[in-house]
């Protein structure tokens, strides 16, 4: 045919051999998607333990004073330890325990109102080894490093998101920011008056008015010490033929892990800090049912594993593809995965139970709701209409359809675990269609029509980009339309929806939610405080109620006490009656763990908690090869096809 007959048969043979070896090689390939870890064995000869986990996107910034999103926190938490930390097992109520500090700060009264928090750092804590320090050894952490961190928060060029809150309380912080802004450059030689360094390890933090929530800020990485050398060394410039990364992409902390490698769009690798000794595994705090599993770990040196490999997944589907193959040690159960791994009775499906997969539910300290615009001429002045809308929305059914009933239907603005949360509280305008119709009639729209007989039409703004989100919007629309009114769904991009929420150009908007910065009722109730109407804050409903404001202000300055709890209860009732928003859910984080990596901590205030993680590497190896068996029949069929093709080819070329 196309080749002279003599060379044809030899070429066919070559081709056949080549293709056959290709097929065999592919068959011999493992489907393991990971590159080699840092090492294969530890110094003592036991296997190097790598934990594989998932990240939804690249972290934006790893600067401890700047980054605010949960993805960045997931990497910062193991690298950059804070002055205080949350106890990994105690969640009801949450408990702070010292980390870099010797003990919880001592509170003193300050002349002229306000308080002074007296803090002492643990001695002998070192920054991770890095070329930015002399001889590449880590330097000891001192109170100066904390002072430097606070200065950085006030630096206008750094754009720290917490400045606006802290400057209201910490003495001298706002002035320092203004001065830096005026001069176009922040002067680090000026001492910050609010943070007084009193010794090598001791410092006083001055707040101008009572702010009990300050302790929570000390448990966040914004206030964690930073080495000035590191910031100056990692400047993003060319030095001796090599470009150093920016400090914001190369954090150097005191934590149990250091950032070893970060390939954008691909993965982040953390490797253990061999000199870590700041904290140890807690001695108590878990329930009796976990005693057997956790007692052996009590008081052990941390971290328990050697490396954390976080793969970046822009799509959620590959996450449970890899989990199923045993290549991820745990996964958060997202919307897609709920339905595929769980039965409607909220149990793990048979197959996964047999595999020994563990299911853990923890409710995030978060609340989601639909905002109703109090400044809208239709929705705003009509309390009955708002109550009717709220009563028409069947949250439980919504959660049944879209989340296999996993999240908690929200009855109040506070999520569980926060002081003042009322376990027995029922939303007075929860789902009740008959009542909703009656309320709508009272609101002036009997059967959804106004006095002139025109059907009431409301707009509902959502941010819907995926198929699931689209279906959710459709569901919500149908719920409201049960009242006989018409609801027009407007799909926005996320940015546009936020803009609308900020400007107040909406009637009903989905996508409002709040995830606790710290577990205090103030952090939720301030969402309805009148001074927090955008642009000042996140009171997107534009709810203004003088009585609410008065109680809120009083409650915010108090320490937790039965009296404070009483006020919080009152606030919850006011909101429930006024319905500035339609309650949706407290998001529950459902997590799956593989049998070789059981869950140790379940505190939603922690982001990963990798220093407490445990791993059984040999079990993982065994399960992986069991779950990824490669059947040979397709290779057989292919080879058969090649043989037939080759014979056919040879024959026809001979004929010619």
């Amino acid at each position: 045919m196309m080749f002279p007959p003599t060379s044809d048969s030899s070429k066919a043979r070559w081709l056949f051999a080549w293709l056959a070896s290709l097929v065999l090689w592919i068959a011999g390939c493992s489907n393991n998607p990971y590159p080699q870890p840092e090492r294969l064995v530890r110094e003592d000869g036991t296997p190097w333990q790598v934990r594989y986990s998932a990240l939804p996107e690249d972290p934006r910034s790893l600067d401890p004073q700047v980054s605010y999103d949960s993805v960045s926190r997931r990497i910062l938490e193991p690298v950059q330890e804070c002055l205080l930390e949350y106890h990994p097992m105690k969640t009801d109520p949450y408990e702070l325990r010292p980390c870099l500090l010797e003990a919880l700060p001592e509170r003193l009264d300050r002349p002229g109102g306000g308080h002074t928090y007296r803090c002492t750092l643990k001695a002998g804590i070192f920054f991770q080894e890095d070329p930015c320090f002399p001889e590449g050894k880590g330097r000891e952490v001192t109170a100066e490093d904390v002072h430097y961190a606070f200065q950085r928060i006030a630096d206008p060029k750094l754009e720290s998101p917490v400045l606006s809150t802290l400057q209201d309380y910490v003495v001298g912080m706002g002035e320092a920011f203004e001065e830096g802004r005026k001069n176009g450059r922040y002067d680090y030689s000026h001492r910050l008056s609010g943070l007084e360094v009193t010794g090598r390890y001791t410092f006083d933090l001055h707040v101008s008015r009572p702010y009990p929530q300050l302790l929570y800020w000390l448990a966040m990485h914004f206030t964690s010490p930073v080495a000035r050398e590191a910031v100056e060394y990692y400047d993003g410039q060319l030095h001796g033929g090599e470009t150093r990364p920016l400090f914001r992409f190369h954090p150097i902390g005191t934590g149990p892990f250091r950032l070893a490698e970060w390939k954008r769009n691909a993965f982040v690798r953390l490797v253990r800090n061999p000199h870590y000794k700041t904290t140890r595994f807690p001695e108590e705090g878990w329930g009796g049912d976990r005693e057997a599993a956790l007692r052996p770990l009590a008081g052990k040196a941390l971290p328990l594993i050697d490396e954390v490999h976080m793969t970046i997944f822009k799509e959620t589907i590959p996450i449970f593809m890899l989990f199923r193959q045993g290549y991820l040690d745990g996964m958060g159960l997202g919307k897609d995965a709920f339905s595929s791994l769980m039965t409607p009775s909220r149990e793990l499906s048979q197959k996964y139970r047999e595999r020994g997969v563990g299911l853990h539910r923890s409710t995030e300290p978060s609340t989601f709701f639909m905002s109703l615009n109090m400044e809208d001429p239709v929705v705003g002045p009509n309390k009955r209409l708002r109550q009717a809308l709220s009563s028409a929305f069947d949250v439980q059914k919504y959660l049944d359809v879209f989340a296999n009933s996993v999240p908690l239907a929200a009855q109040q603005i506070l999520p569980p675990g926060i002081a003042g949360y009322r376990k027995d509280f029922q939303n007075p305008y929860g789902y009740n269609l008959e009542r909703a119709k009656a309320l709508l009639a009272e609101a002036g729209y009997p059967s959804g029509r106004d006095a002139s007989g025109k059907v009431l039409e409301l707009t509902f703004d959502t941010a819907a980009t995926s198929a699931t989100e689209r279906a959710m919007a459709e569901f919500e629309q149908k719920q409201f339309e049960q009242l006989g009114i018409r609801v027009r769904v407007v799909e926005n991009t996320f940015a546009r929806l936020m803009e609308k929420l900020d400007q107040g150009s909406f009637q009903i908007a989905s996508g409002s939610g709040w995830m606790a910065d710290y577990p205090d009722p103030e952090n939720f109730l301030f969402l309805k405080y009148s001074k927090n109407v955008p642009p000042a804050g996140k009171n997107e409903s534009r709810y203004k109620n003088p009585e609410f404001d008065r109680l809120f202000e009083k409650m915010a300055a108090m320490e937790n006490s039965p009296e404070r709890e009483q006020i919080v209860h009152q606030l919850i009732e006011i909101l429930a009656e006024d319905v500035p928003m339609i309650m949706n859910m407290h998001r529950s984080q459902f997590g799956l763990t593989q049998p070789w990596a059981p869950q140790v901590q379940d505190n939603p205030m922690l982001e990963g908690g990798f220093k407490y993680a445990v791993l059984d590497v040999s079990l993982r190896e065994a399960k992986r090869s069991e779950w990824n068996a490669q059947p040979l029949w397709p290779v057989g069929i292919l080879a058969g096809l090649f043989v037939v093709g080759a014979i056919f080819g040879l024959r026809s070329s001979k004929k010619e």
Partner: protein
Amino acid sequence: MIVFAYVWVGAFGLQGDGLLDKASLLAERIWFQNALIFGAYALLACLLWRGSRLERWVSAWKRLRRDWIGMGSLGLIVVFLAVGTLDLVQLPIKEGKQTALDALSAFVVTESGYSAPLATHTLSLSNPTKLIGHHLLGTDALGRDTLVRTLKGARTALLIGGLTSVIYIPIGVLLGILAGYYRRWVDDLVQYAYSTIASVPEILMLVAILMVLGKGLVSMALALGLTGWVGMARMIRGETLRQVERPYVAAAQALGQSNWKIMTRHLVPNVMHLVVIKFVLGFSGLVLAEAILSYLGVGSPVGTASWGAMIDASRSELSREPMVWWNLAASATALFLLVLSLNVFGDSLRRAFDPRRG
């Protein structure tokens, strides 16, 4: 035009909502929508009637009639057209929207969740509930009948393809002929315009238009149309350059016919067959584009039954236990059949118009 007015208003920070509201109010009237559909069909009929007087078209039709593959695919296209049209025609039956297809499929009940084709119970391992009705191709996550959803998808495909073509074909043909006939600076200008538009990424254009006008099939068609005329203009310009060399143009010019007349009476009929072929083949591209855009999250809006959205949703359905495959199978098959028949018919048309090249 509405876009440009709106963009203009928006650029100067004025409130443009009023204008848009009026336009959308008009567009939501039932009679207006139905009039648009019948208008579109009338336009198509006019085009065919005009074509039937061209000798080239008549001989092409004769050849096409003998091409059984082409005729078969034409038949399939007509079926899709009919289904889509049924779902486009609004009936003044009830409050809210009700199309002819909705009325025809009113007997199909909605279940509580997934169910397999012809199953008697919902898809669930632990507590399957009995279905109310029968579903030939099963139901989706919200319990809607897959077959009905798939049929309704034809409307979305048709709307995207049709609306976009209505936008890009006139722009492309007009600019192409102008550039090819006048040459010189007109040609330079047109070439500049399409080189520039072709260099702006479509996705940016699309997202920008969707964000200004809001998500909807019309904005999607606008975005696709405003970027899609480039290829058409380029092709028509080339063909016009060739036609202008022909003696009939010189003869018309010698007879003192106006330029406008030469373009509309002589040039347009002579390039029209290329437009038809490109329209048919381009239509299939647009149907595929809708699917890809739905996957990227900038596709059809909430509530629209679209094959792209169904395929997108099927990715998570495939990894369920037990697997939900029927939504993917139904939507992919429908999409495949329409695109295939459009492509095959386009090829047949090309052969019929130009037997030598076939």
